[in-house]
């Protein structure tokens, strides 16, 4: 009896054949060039050292990423874990960029080792950040995203500060598969073989780690040792790919998920299916990229193209993904004592804000060192420069903080922050479109472009959220997917390496340097328009975190309240992103800080967070102006570095409490 071949296998074979056909076409074009004497030799070289290794690298890198993603998803029990969502790729790339600049000899010796170190640091940071939350999936992915964003911003600042030298980072960032030899294929190949071997050997622990901790411990498994071993293996595979060809997004995410959806049930089946599917996916994408390439080069690097395909795929998958039942995302167990007179504390904070403002306006550096501007005309002129920047920074910090309070309360997720909804990146994609179509677009057009981008992003997220009646986690996942998609668009534009790329890089790192009084007034009005309604709607913010049942019982339309609040938060993040870039963790940190100061009730927390956000951004702006005078660094970068330090501190306290 002839058994029917299952549909998914047919599908994947079909796609594989299609990729084969694309490759065959490329080969045919190459062979048709074999005519005159000297050219034959060169064409053979292009075939042997160009086309063939490129196909091999596509297949091997795809398989390596598929395996890496499978291991990470399994170990972390997180369907969205993969090298790029966990910031492993970004960390590896940043390490390569830093090493290229400051210790080129190490990169020359082993770029893979450098990338591995960077990836390990990234993943260690994420595990550390989310350890006391039991590596709960949403937190892990959010932390990964933060690490990735910060690493990308730092990378962008490196390019900006070093001009033409780092143009190779443009290419790495996009992940180009162009090959001129077999070394990368061999490097990825033997590591993939080792990785597969190790995965098969560790099959039993891997299978058990997919269960919950208690079961795993009951089976006598040294939980953490095997976990770390397997994570290191996954990082090693991903870092090799980054070192050899650059960041290739989404293959690591899509391959294991698609394997599951294609009917791979057992771990053994998945270990076969995920790498195979990853290989087919990347080969196919690369074939399409080559097909679309003109004589002037490939329009989009393959690594960015995978993200363009993968982002929508992720959005489509979202309602279909089975999320593990996870202990609900409660507020951290310890809550600082609520203060008796919160408004007194807020007044003190406000006074601190005013002092900071005065310092930011008056104290600066000049050719003759530090100076406190005091004489009339110069003071007026300097303040005229500093005031718009400081106001833009402060109000954007305040808006982000307000958005952060809202998002954290609506999603009941203390790790949520406005950047996470992808609205900042959406604004960037809109800005990129405007710059591409009209290179010298004025501020008005740029604002229009970024607002449109932000609104479109927001609408997509809300539509998806409404359709699937998504809970808080899936809403955030949708945000992450949009963020990744928009970041890929930005990466593709940046990879073009032209004047617009430079403008976008500047925006990505978050700069207040061009701030004008017009922008300052827009931002200030925005802050008022956003904060006042929130203070009025404080009741919603107080009730929503208590759960849908409670909300319904007090007569609150959950959907209306939630959507309105999200809309306000999104507008706040969009406006702030236009002026200070997509990155600054003011929206994450400020609500936390406010709560730690005992401002727990809604209105005091909101007011406190807004002031703290403004403070944070004013300090970041001042530091960015002063530290490397006369060179100025982007304020967003400073804010996110401060945010990273804060997160690490947060973790330290958590561990101590447990230990």
């Amino acid at each position, binding site marked *: 009896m002839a058994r029917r071949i299952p549909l998914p296998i047919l599908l994947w074979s079909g796609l594989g054949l299609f990729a084969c056909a694309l490759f065959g076409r490329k080969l045919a074009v190459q062979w048709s060039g074999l005519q005159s004497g000297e050219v034959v030799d060169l064409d053979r*070289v292009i075939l042997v050292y160009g086309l063939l290794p490129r196909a091999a690298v596509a297949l091997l890198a795809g398989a390596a990423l598929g395996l890496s993603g499978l291991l990470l998803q399994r170990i972390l029990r997180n369907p969205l874990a993969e090298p790029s969502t966990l910031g492993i790729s970004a960390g590896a790339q940043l390490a390569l960029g830093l090493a*290229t600049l400051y210790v080129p000899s190490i990169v020359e010796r082993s770029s893979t080792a450098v990338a591995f170190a960077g990836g390990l640091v990234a993943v260690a940071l994420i595990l550390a950040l989310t350890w006391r939350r039991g590596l709960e999936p949403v937190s892990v992915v959010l932390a990964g995203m933060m690490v990735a964003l910060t690493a990308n911003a730092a990378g962008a600042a490196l390019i900006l500060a070093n001009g033409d030298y780092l143009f190779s980072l443009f290419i790495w960032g996009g992940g180009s598969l162009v090959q*001129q030899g077999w070394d990368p294929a061999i490097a990825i190949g033997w590591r993939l073989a080792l990785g597969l071997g190790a995965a098969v050997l560790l099959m039993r622990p891997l299978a058990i780690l997919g269960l919950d901790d208690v079961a795993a411990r009951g089976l006598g498994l040294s939980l953490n040792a095997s976990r770390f071993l397997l994570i290191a293996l996954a990082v090693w595979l991903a870092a090799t790919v980054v070192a050899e060809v650059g960041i290739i997004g989404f293959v690591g995410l899509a391959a294991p998920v698609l394997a599951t959806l294609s009917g791979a049930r057992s771990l053994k089946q998945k270990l076969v299916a995920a790498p195979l599917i990853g290989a087919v996916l990347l080969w196919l994408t690369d074939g399409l990229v080559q097909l679309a390439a003109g004589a*002037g080069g490939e329009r989009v690097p393959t690594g960015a193209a995978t993200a363009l395909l993968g982002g929508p795929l992720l959005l489509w998958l979202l309602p279909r993904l089975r999320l593990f039942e996870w202990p609900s995302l409660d507020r951290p167990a310890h809550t600082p004592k609520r203060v008796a007179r919160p408004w007194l504390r807020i007044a003190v904070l406000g006074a601190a804000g005013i002092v900071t403002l005065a310092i930011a306006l008056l104290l600066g550096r000049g050719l003759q060192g530090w100076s406190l501007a005091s004489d009339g005309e110069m003071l007026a002129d300097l303040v*005229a420069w500093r005031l718009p920047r400081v106001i833009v920074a402060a109000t954007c910090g305040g808006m982000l903080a307000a958005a952060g309070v809202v998002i954290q309360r609506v999603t009941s997720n203390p790790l949520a922050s406005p950047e996470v909804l992808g609205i900042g990146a959406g604004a960037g994609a809109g800005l990129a479109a405007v710059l591409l179509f009209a290179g*010298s677009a004025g501020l008005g057009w740029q604002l229009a472009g970024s607002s449109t981008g932000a609104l479109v992003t927001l609408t997509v997220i809300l539509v998806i959220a409404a359709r699937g009646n998504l809970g808080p986690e899936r809403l955030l996942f949708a945000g992450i997917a949009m963020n990744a998609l928009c970041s890929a668009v930005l990466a593709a534009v940046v*990879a073009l390496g*032209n004047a617009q790329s430079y403008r976008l890089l500047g925006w990505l790192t978050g700069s207040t340097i061009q701030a004008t009084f017009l922008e300052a007034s827009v931002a200030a009005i925005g802050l008022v328009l956003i904060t006042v309604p929130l203070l009025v709607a404080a009741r919603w913010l107080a009730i929503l975190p208590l759960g849908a049942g409670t909300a319904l019982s007090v007569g609150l339309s959950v959907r209306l309240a939630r959507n309105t609040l999200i809309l306000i938060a999104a507008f706040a993040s969009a406006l702030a992103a236009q002026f200070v870039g997509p990155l600054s963790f003011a929206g994450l940190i400020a609500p936390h800080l406010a709560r730690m100061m005992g401002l727990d009730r809604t209105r005091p927390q909101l007011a406190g967070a807004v002031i703290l956000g403004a403070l944070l951004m004013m300090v970041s702006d001042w530091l960015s102006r002063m530290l490397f005078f006369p060179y100025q660094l982007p304020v967003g970068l400073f804010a996110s570095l401060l945010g990273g330090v804060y997160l690490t501190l947060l973790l330290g306290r958590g561990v101590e409490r447990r230990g």
Partner: protein
Amino acid sequence: MSFRRDGHLACLSGSPSLDRRAFLALAASALLPRLASAAQPRIAIIDWGLLETALAIGVVPAAATELRQFARIAVEPAIPASVVDLGLRGSPNYELLRMLAPDLILISGFYEYQRPSLERIAPVLALPIYEAGRPPYPLAQSSLLALGERTGRGADADRYAAETGAELEERRLALRRFASRPAFLISLGDARHFRAFGADSMPGDVLARLGITNAWHDDTSYSAAAPVGIEALARVPEASIIVLAPLPAEVSRGLPDNALWNALPAVREGRVAVLEPVNHFGGLPSARRFARLLADAVAREPNHG
């Protein structure tokens, strides 16, 4: 009295009817260069191409951007120590600029977005060198002349433009044998990709002026095209390859082992010239530097041509 603002006008109209006052003015400008420069506006320059152009005609700006990087990438001319570093080109330090209080700020189209901020400090003069799809040499030359006009160095500017033209002509003759083949003009960002300089880049424009056919015919934008895989260099097997430094460490390490690179006819036959860095977005001084470096490299290598 226009010649008083521009002492060289007398020089240009140096006819037998040279009157006494003009003669004195000429003498003053020759004997007392400090006096002449005191009459010059204090200038701040954001754009590197204009920076080298200004220095070429003896205008020393009060401030300019990214001087450390300039010394590494553009190399020449040496920047006098009196010039204050304003920070990154993309984000110059406006506060510092305000404290320096220049009389005039020079930008190019690249920095047009900074104009509103800069105009609060001093009048802004935008002198275009690069515009998409246009060869930059004529633009650079007219910018040079306009700058000379504005700073009272019209004669120096005229002379510099003429010298540049003459030098290019001289190099063109010297490079006649080399010009029998087309050439790729590229920079290498990593060991796998290059960017080609087309006719709308300064080195590409100069290449054409030296009588050398650019082997790269596809579109480039004036910031050089998107990176292309090295195998694209095989499309014109008879072409020579001119590489503009700097070479990243990865390239120096990876390129000698790159089988495809080594298989290129130009590489096998030693028709590759690696030149010292040249400012990719320079003015006429960069044009001269590029022509000189190329002629020197070709003169050193018997295989070229």
